[in-house]
């Protein structure tokens, strides 16, 4: 009688385990087959505040566009931490796949950031001047500089997010992407191209029979 009870209990446990496994399998298959629906979010109306108005005179003559991949990864330091860390990850369904694998990665964030660098001239600068001599028109311009480095949320994609990440970490990565964009742009020697394009533009706007001379300070 006792043996029969034990056997029934064992069978009951096995049945429950099988049901749980089927349910888990079902959930995973469902998640794999059905892409998560993008939540229909709508921002609550809030006013747009005009904080500052500035009169400027900037001539942008060259733009450089690129995409930067920025990655941040952190590994578990010890095996014990890895085991506990992977169990903790089970609380977030998004991280189950890493947890089941027993991943050595504690957390990882990979961003693809599209950005733009504008080169040009600040014509409000005291260095901008046009004056005539007997036989020539002399245009003095400041050296070309970077006027804007633009990275926007609409051009930013989270390629991989695993684990918890603070805003500060994301902002640091975005800052790094901006620096990379500027470094790449500088390596291309775009200041020369910016100068040439400015000269082409100004030649059209300055109506003179005299020789046009461009100086850069």
């Amino acid at each position, binding site marked *: 009688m006792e043996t029969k009870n034990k056997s029934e209990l064992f069978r009951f446990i*096995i049945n429950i385990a*099988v049901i749980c*496994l089927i349910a888990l*399998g079902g959930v*995973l298959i469902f998640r794999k087959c059905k892409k998560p629906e993008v*939540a229909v*979010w*709508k*921002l*609550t109306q*809030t*006013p*747009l*505040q*005009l*904080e*500052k*108005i*500035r*009169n*400027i*005179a*900037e*001539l*942008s*003559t060259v*733009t450089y*566009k690129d*995409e930067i*991949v920025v990655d941040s990864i952190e590994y578990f330091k010890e095996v014990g931490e890895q085991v506990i860390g992977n169990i903790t990850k089970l609380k*977030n369904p*998004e991280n189950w*796949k890493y947890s*089941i694998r027993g991943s050595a990665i504690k957390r990882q964030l990979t961003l*693809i950031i599209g950005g733009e660098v504008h080169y*040009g001239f600040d*014509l409000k600068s005291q260095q901008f001047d046009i004056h005539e001599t007997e036989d020539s028109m002399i245009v003095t311009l400041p050296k070309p500089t970077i*006027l*804007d480095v*633009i*990275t926007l*949320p*609409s051009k930013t*994609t*989270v*390629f991989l*997010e695993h684990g*918890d*990440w603070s*805003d500060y970490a*994301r*902002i640091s990565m975005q*800052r790094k992407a901006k620096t990379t964009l500027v470094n790449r742009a500088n390596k291309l020697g*775009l200041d020369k191209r910016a100068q040439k*394009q400015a000269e082409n*533009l100004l030649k*059209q*706007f*300055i*109506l003179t029979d005299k020789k046009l001379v461009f100086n850069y300070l």
Partner: protein
Amino acid sequence: MKHFLYILLCLILITCQEEKTLPETDVYQIQDLGMLSTTEYTFGKILHLEDNKEWYKLGDRKILISVRAKAKAGVDLRKVSNADIVEKNKKTISITLPAPEIISFDMNTEDVRTVHTDVNGFRMEFNQEEKIKILEMGEQAIRKEMMQSDILKDAEKNAVVFLRDFYKNQGYENVIIDFKIPETYGDKK
């Protein structure tokens, strides 16, 4: 029964495989411009989102993010042809400029702050992917709402001031500046 369990286990492991591969990125682009920016507006906005619409999710999530955006407006000098610049006499010049437009728009990441979040029930905290999505919605909202401001009118006014000085330095006393009628006053960037 054993076989069934093995099959199920294999199935689970297969479904757990990662499929993500880095998307192909475009080769960088370099483009010549001729944009004269004459005004810069700085806008501030609080992005307020309540994620409580789906009935099957137990609990609510609310978030407030403060953002700041800078927009520069001006005229595209590449759209000015030789026929648009006419020297009427030695002292008078007439120039027809294209309608002003938004030249650049930037949301500086340093000025983005999560002011408040409230997550309750069985809901997860907002992750970075979701926050970027909210920021993107904010970006679209600011781009749309800023067109109600005077940014393009100011850009036009400042372009007139700049070009008047530009030509006066070259000896012209009368500088006539007109603008082409805009097809749509719009945000190109």
